[in-house]
């Protein structure tokens, strides 16, 4: 297996140009998301979904205009992959999570499983779609389209370990410059999803950007739930058996 790769999206240098959104759609042939004026700052695609795999959030605050490009987190512990019954979702040799559209049967289990609300079914064809981290480009030795297009290197692609080091250094620099509100999001392997393959440097609380503050892989408790369910079943069988046993007496 190749080295694990990922994205480090540094929102402190994002200029909101949306080149990532366009490059992603161009490369991956993602359809448009409809022509809807949303009156929410400069955001007219709304959020990640079947037809938007990179999404730039625009947050207007008093004297500040935050911009950040969101994407599938390619979680270490990916619930979408756990729940997929067909094997359409799989973990690649780059340790990324990809849906194979020719296998996806559109059951939609992955949709509520994602703690970030990333993956979505496309109404027109029923299948689930999301960022592939440009799996085909990676296999060809190219960086993903969004990272390639980003003019300010807000989106950086590379080996995950290297990106984490770079991000820590960048955070340190920003803190030294007095940008106390800077923080990393999704970089910690000890977090609820085992660390994200796509992590971020944010300038405010994650909720400000529409990100869950403490995401947890939704299948985390699944083994335990099976255990309890099994226990309950055994108990139930026992109880029923006991009833019959009792009646015989």
């Amino acid at each position: 297996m190749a080295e694990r790769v990922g994205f480090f999206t540094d929102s402190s240098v994002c200029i909101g140009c949306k080149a990532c959104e366009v490059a992603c759609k161009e490369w991956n042939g993602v359809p448009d998301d409809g022509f809807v004026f949303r009156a929410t700052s400069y955001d007219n695609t709304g959020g990640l979904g079947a037809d938007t795999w990179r999404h730039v959030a625009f947050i207007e605050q008093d004297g500040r205009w935050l911009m950040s490009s969101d994407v599938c987190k390619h979680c270490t512990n990916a619930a979408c992959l756990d729940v997929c019954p067909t094997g359409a979702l799989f973990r690649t040799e780059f340790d990324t999570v990809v849906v194979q559209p020719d296998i996806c049967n559109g059951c939609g289990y992955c949709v509520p499983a994602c703690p970030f609300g990333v993956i979505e079914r496309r109404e027109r064809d029923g299948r689930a779609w999301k960022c592939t981290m440009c799996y085909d480009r990676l296999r060809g030795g190219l960086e993903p389209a969004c990272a390639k297009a980003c003019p300010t290197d807000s989106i950086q692609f590379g080996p995950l370990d290297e990106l984490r080091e770079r991000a820590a250094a960048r955070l340190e620099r920003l803190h030294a410059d007095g940008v106390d509100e800077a923080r990393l999001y999704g970089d910690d392997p000890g977090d609820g999803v085992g660390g994200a393959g796509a992590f971020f440097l944010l300038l405010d609380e994650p909720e400000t950007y529409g990100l869950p503050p403490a995401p947890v892989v939704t299948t985390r408790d699944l083994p335990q739930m099976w255990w309890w369910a099994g226990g309950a079943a055994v108990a139930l069988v026992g109880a029923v058996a006991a009833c019959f046993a009792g009646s015989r007496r």
Partner: protein
Amino acid sequence: MAECHPVGFQWVMEARLRGAKVFHIDPRFSRTSAVADRYLPIRAGTDIVLLGALINHVLSNELYFRDYVLAYTNAATLVSERFQDTEDLDGLFSGFDPETRRYDPSSWAYEGDEEATTDEMREGGATHAEAAGSDSYGARGAGASARPPTDPTLRHPRCVLQVLKRHFARYTPEMVDELCGIAPEDFAELAEAITANSGRERTTAWVYSVGWTQHSVGVQYIRASAILQLLLGNMGRPGGGIMALRGHASIQGSTDIPTLFNLLPGYLAMPHAHRHEDLADYLEREGAGTGYWGNRRSYLVSLLKAWWGDAATEDNDFCFDYLPRLTGDHGHYTTVMGQIDGTVKGYFVIGENPAVGSANGRAQRMGLANLDWLVVRDLTLVETATFWKDGPELETGEMRTGDIATEVFFLPAASHVEKEGTFTNTQRLLQWREKALDPPGDCRSDLWFYYHLGKRIRRRLGDDEIDRPMTELTWDYPEEGQYREPSAEAVLREINGTGPDGRALSSYRELAPDGSTRCGCWIYCGVYADEVNQAARRMPGNRQSWVAPEWGWAWPANRRILYNRASADPDGRPWSERKAYVWWDADRGEWTGHDVPDFDLRKPPDYQPPEGARAEAALSGTDPFIMQSDGKGWLYVPSGLSDGPMPAHYEPHESPVLNTLYGRQANPTRRIYDRPENPYNPPGAARFPYVFTTSRLTEHHTAGGMSRTLAYLAELQPELFCEVSPQLAAEVGLVNGGWATIVTSRTAIECRVLVTDRVRPLRVQRQIIHQVVVPYHWGHEGLVTGDVVNDLLPVVLDPNVYIQESKVCTCAVLPGRRPRGQALLDLIEEYRHG
């Protein structure tokens, strides 16, 4: 810059990472403001007040770079006794004729130059105002004496520095507060930052986009910035300069090899019908004999030889008579008025969309509707090609398709990836593009179109005398492929020029005045040196010096910074180790450094010109601004401008504010079209209380022809909207996401509403001024449509270059959508007359 030039903006972001402080001064809080260190909102149209106050701050606190200013600018030069300033005449300079509303600039001259040596100077402003002469004039170095009298102590009351001091004395922080809406403490921070960051060790750059030019005082905006940069020693040095970010790809190229009516390639003036009877006449009258323009015969004769080849000989003035002649103003807006008047019958529109992109779109479309024929070449059916079937005037009943007799030819064009050629960027860098794929269907390159059109026309011509400019034209490029595409490289080689041996020239210094050399554009000479397409070079940055001379090719002579002699002190030593760029190597007896020196390589710093010297020989070893007749950076412009030798603040033609600096409200020489198609909001009309300005968005391209048609861009900004402050929204009754109608005397448009704190009401002259910001990308074609914002604008022009004042006018704002049909006309009529 982040908004319109996101790719170039990466370098600003990188500079920030290295510690640069970025100020963003703009009426609108844009994506640039979001990542700048400081954002200063300003009332649109007041930049000269701000720049003038910075100049005053530098002068009155003696913060200028004295050694640089004394040696390299005209600060010490004495101005004519006859000159009177706006200080003396309450907002006018001397020489104003109220009848013609034009200046006679002879009194602006240097002392001793009043009786001008050329007609040029004597005729001055008025003649140039006729045909945007100032445009070519400024670039070619207006005539002025190479050695005017000076006072090196800078104390003489008529030396330029003292004239400037008096002129800008009234530009105070209080005035900035009162007119721009910028608080004194914010001004102080800006002033401190730029002065602290200029001098021997440091340089400051100013960056503007074309919005800065789109004012009735547009040229003087840039002049004000130039004065400031010269005073601070920020010209010709690394990290300094004034970066003009152009409106779209290769607009720099289209001024170098111009699409402008008043210029020939390489900023040579287009000859005038009556003032330039023959070549000698032209060379005598157009520009100065000293400085590099002193070689203009070589440049022009080589151009004529490139165009007419063997037919151009010494005996026939090298076919000078074949060049078209100006008879007056042939600029865009005068042409449109000519269409309405029926004097202009045919029109080529190539890669432009004036029905959406130009000021007063209704006048544009009225012009188009009155033509005999119209040719539109574009990637898609833009509004200029379809105005006759679904333009706004059809909805109002002002036009009916059946009444429009214009025959419209739409010719599909190849895009930039479907043809090869060069782009010239804002840094004068030529970069060759390969063709990625063939254009689809009938789409063809512009080169193909003009080349084959020329061939067809030539086939129809006989041997009449009058046809000889066409029949004798060199028009024989190699043709390639199925559609006989002319070779773009052959054209580039012709532009580069060839010597008597037929080989490509390597420098404009090789151009000869006798017809032995050919060159299609003298400043591009060298782009094909050694028979190699130098613009196609792609040496990676990490394999060459930081100046990166082997990436593409920059005109002139592959110089990356113009006037870089100024990066060394008068003795030829770098001003500082940190800012070393080009210097004099005394041992080798030549200039050297990181870049190609912009100076005679072997002219020592102590060179003094002999009496009667011409061209570059007339400039001393300490004259870095080699295109100027005196080799100096001009703090004060003795000739070449139509509206004054120094910038003065005038309010925009339409403004809700009184000019408290002078008794003159607006630029007295601004060009007005007082016609029924072009009504102006009456001065001081309370029914137009708001400042209106237009803008662009990253997601769209200019008039929208290249973005509204593409789903991936259209979805990102699907509807026309205005940005308003919460206070204005409350005042007018606008709701976020709702509709607004914006009204001027020209028309009314409707747009969606974005209420945002980013737009800040400004306190100006003790009242609150609201600014309405509207991007102008929409029209009635494409995947997403909307009203044409530029329909709101009046046509009023800068007198130097005829650019329209499209960045500021006044408007009214109403809640809800606009009326349709006759009701819309009624609404405009009501507002027009109050």
